[in-house]
């Protein structure tokens, strides 16, 4: 199994099976938007909770003041913010019958960007020590810039030109793509590129998994932005599984981190 611990592989397979089953159920319920939406939200909350719990479990096993702990705590707080956002969104929309956008849920969604991005940037800085190369950040910034231009041309420019959209929605509508592409995609891509030099070592594996999850999250969010603008998104759409898999990957990455660092008894 090489650099991958048995626990990491088994957890990943179980979560993939759970996600596939839930996705099948969600698609079966696609004719009933309430049921499909409930499955979608429950899945997102469950996978984000798993990721936050896994991160806090790792943090608990590290000594206070360890640099690695700060990275893990930020990832955990970012995932916890997403749990709160999803929960409040569901509460407002499905229980209270209120409009969930814009709402207090957005505070938590937006807060998740600097938290997750901060954790990824700290990890990037740690792996860049003794590995000085400007390429990861430059290449990632180029990718983020291209994606930003694409989103601007297709969604943001028309939204800003629409006088019927409120200023709050315009600001929020900008914060989400900016957060996705500059606070999530950029550090995740840069980290993934930097970790290429650590191939064959087990310390890099957990962060590769986390970076893949963050890139998937940014991609899913961006796809949602496009679909929402085009009016083609409904709860239970295919892309909902993107969030599940992204959150699951971050959680599995945290489990892999605990194993790679020997933080559990009977490591690996």
């Amino acid at each position: 199994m090489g650099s991958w611990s048995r626990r990491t592989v088994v957890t990943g397979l179980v979560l993939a099976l759970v996600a596939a089953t839930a996705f099948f159920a969600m698609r079966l319920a696609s004719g009933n938007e309430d049921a499909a939406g409930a499955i979608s939200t429950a899945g997102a909350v469950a996978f984000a909770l798993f990721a936050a719990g896994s991160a806090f479990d790792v943090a608990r096993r590290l000594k206070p003041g360890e640099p690695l702990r700060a990275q893990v705590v930020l990832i955990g707080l970012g995932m916890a913010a997403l749990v709160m956002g999803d929960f409040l969104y569901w509460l407002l929309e499905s229980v209270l019958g209120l409009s969930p956008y814009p709402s207090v849920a957005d505070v938590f969604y937006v807060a998740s960007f600097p938290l997750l991005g901060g954790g990824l940037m700290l990890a990037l800085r740690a792996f860049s020590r003794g590995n000085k190369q400007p390429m990861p950040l430059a290449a990632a910034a180029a990718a983020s810039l291209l994606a930003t231009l694409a989103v601007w041309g297709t969604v943001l420019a028309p939204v800003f030109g629409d006088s019927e959209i409120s200023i709050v929605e315009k600001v929020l509508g900008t914060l989400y793509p900016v957060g996705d592409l500059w606070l999530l995609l950029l550090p995740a891509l840069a980290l993934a590129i930097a970790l290429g030099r650590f191939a064959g070592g087990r310390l890099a594996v957990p962060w590769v998994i986390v970076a893949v999850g963050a890139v998937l999250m940014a991609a899913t969010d961006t796809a949602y932005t496009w679909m929402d603008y085009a009016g083609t998104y409904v709860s239970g759409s295919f892309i909902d599984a993107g969030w599940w898999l992204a959150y699951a990957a971050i959680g599995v990455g945290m489990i892999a981190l605990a194993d790679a660092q020997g933080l559990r008894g009977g490591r690996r």
Partner: protein
Amino acid sequence: MSAEVAHAAIGVLRSLVGPAMAVVYVSQAAHALGKDLESLEPSDADLLCVELRKIMGGHCSIAMLETLCDDVRREMTAAASR
């Protein structure tokens, strides 16, 4: 002293950070001591570990660094006695 001692330290790091970065890390730690890989001796192990802790402290737990340094000291001493 031959490069065997340095290779012993590199061997300890290889499974953690991969073969490429293991060489980079041990070279940088040795350089910080004013040495090159060929001139490393078992008596350098403690200071080498101090430098490795500085380089790897951001992505390695303290517990793992302690184990790593124990292994580095043991393997460097064993390599010198071979």
